[in-house]
């Protein structure tokens, strides 16, 4: 059949067009699958623990990688930033996530290498049914130190304030304490929750609650409270207007290698950064 079509300009152009499109498609396709492709044919496992704010992104990334490569196994645990740093430093996990930059002492003691792949904020949150939606830093300090104990003193209903906080290992808490609370006291009758997810659930279920949670985690189940006029949202974190912000880090002991290196590269790749955006954080690339 083709023998009958004489080679002409149109056919030449057609072949050229098809070739170009094919090459372009292959190229684009390769670029799309680029980061995941790095994992193909590899096997092993990656152990991750630490910051709880990172978990949604970790889970999605792990899912993508493990779906494409069943030989790879990724396990994810929480525990807070302090745990992540300690465990990666001691060699118990391969990647230790932290919601605050490790201190100089920690970096030196464990020889940590940091990789920041997202920017997040820490916002004050109350139950969606609570009429109070704006606070000043001074009021926040007084609430957490126990000076103000009833919502009616802030223009809300007559009900005692239930204060929620995180444990000492939490990076979210460290950032909140330093930047929002100005290193003020936290009253000893505060209820403790173990992660960002738990904080969200607690606030959503308690009409008189106040707590602090990663901005990326905030959704309709909690109501963000604006601090000195700036409300905690991804836009204000991005623009720098909301100052209670922190980077999301993945730390390794020394330079990462093998699967760990690929995983971190994946986080920083376009696909990884897309997951970051999808989960509600500010990408770094």
């Amino acid at each position, binding site marked *: 059949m083709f023998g009958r079509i004489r080679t002409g300009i149109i056919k030449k152009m057609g072949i050229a067009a098809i070739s170009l499109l094919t090459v372009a498609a292959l190229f684009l396709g390769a670029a799309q699958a680029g980061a995941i492709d790095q994992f193909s044919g590899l096997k092993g496992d990656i*152990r991750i623990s630490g910051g709880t704010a990172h978990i949604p992104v970790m889970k999605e990334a792990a899912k993508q990688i493990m779906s494409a490569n069943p030989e790879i196994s990724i396990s994810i645990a929480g525990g807070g930033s302090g745990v992540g740093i300690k465990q990666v430093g001691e060699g118990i996990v391969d990647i230790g996530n932290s919601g605050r930059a490790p201190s100089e002492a920690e970096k030196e003691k464990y020889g940590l290498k940091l990789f920041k792949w997202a920017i997040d904020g820490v916002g004050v949150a109350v139950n969606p049914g609570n009429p109070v939606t704006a606070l000043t830093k001074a009021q926040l300090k007084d609430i957490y130190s126990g000076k103000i104990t009833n919502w009616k003193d802030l223009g809300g209903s007559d009900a005692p304030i239930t204060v929620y906080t995180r444990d000492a290992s939490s990076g979210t808490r460290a950032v909140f304490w330093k930047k929002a609370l100005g290193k003020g006291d936290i009253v000893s009758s505060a209820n403790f*929750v173990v992660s960002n*997810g738990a904080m969200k659930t607690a606030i959503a279920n308690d009409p008189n609650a106040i707590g602090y949670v990663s901005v990326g985690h905030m959704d309709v189940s909690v109501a963000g409270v604006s601090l000195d006029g700036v409300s905690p949202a991804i836009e204000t974190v991005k623009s720098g207007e909301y100052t209670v912000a922190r980077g999301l880090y993945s730390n390794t002991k020394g330079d990462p290698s093998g699967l760990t290196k690929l995983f971190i590269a994946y986080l920083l790749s376009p696909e990884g950064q897309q997951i970051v955006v999808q989960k509600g954080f500010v990408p770094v690339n």
Partner: protein
Amino acid sequence: MNIRLLGGCLRVFSWGAVLVLTGSVLVLLGYLLIKGVPSLGRDLIFGQVDILDAVLLRKRVFDGLFPAIAGTLSVVALSVGLAIPVGVCAGIYMSEFATVFQQRVFGLMFDILAGIPSIVIGLFGFSGAIFIHRYISNDFRPCLAVSVAALAFLVLPYITRTTQAAMQGLAEQTRQAALALGATRVQNIFYVLLPRSVSGILSGIILAIGRCAEDTAVIMLTGVVATAGIPGSLLGSYEALPFYIYYISSQYTDEAELMSGYGAAIILLGVCAVLFFLAFIIKRRLAGPAGPVTGRFHG
């Protein structure tokens, strides 16, 4: 005080106690079933993956309880498997060979072990893992193996006690007949006593299985994590059903996850119910040849 009045009060009180106790538990379980049954189904366990693919490990299950169920099954099987030989042998020794002094001392130690809060056993397992990590192998860390060992510590007393009770509870004639015919004590144990104690030992094993399946405190500290897939190796992390329930209860991100928590609770409860009925049937078989076993003063 008028005995009739006191008696009447006591009757009312005891009826009230029974009603409050059974009523509260029935309300709780009823609520659980109402909320959780709608979420039961293939999707709860296997997510979007085909059942065959998941069970044959061809595809990973990400949104289902399958990894947690597999994790619980593994940890229970391994830890009970570890505890049975040690526990049965220890029970045999206590029943047949121990001197009075040994019975007192060992018995005390077993009772103490049985009473140690599970979180303390978890702490012990964790410290053991860190010890090995620091001084023996830097690659070692809290993992399936550590949980298995710690859980074995937890349930060892159950198996030891029931083995000892079963063997000591046999009729004297049964215990001594073979000896009278010239058998050694060990022969007596293997050919006469053990076969007749199987029901009792089995009850102990079922108790141990139930305890391992429901335990959360020990595994929380010794290797269970929220996301790990099915347990790949003894030295790796794993998921478990009771931990999933705990984790979801405080950190569910949407209604669907909360419902899966209810579903998981029902599955766990179902496992316990099955074990309970198994134990009940075994008790029936045990009571069969000897006659019904009842409290001596039933109404």
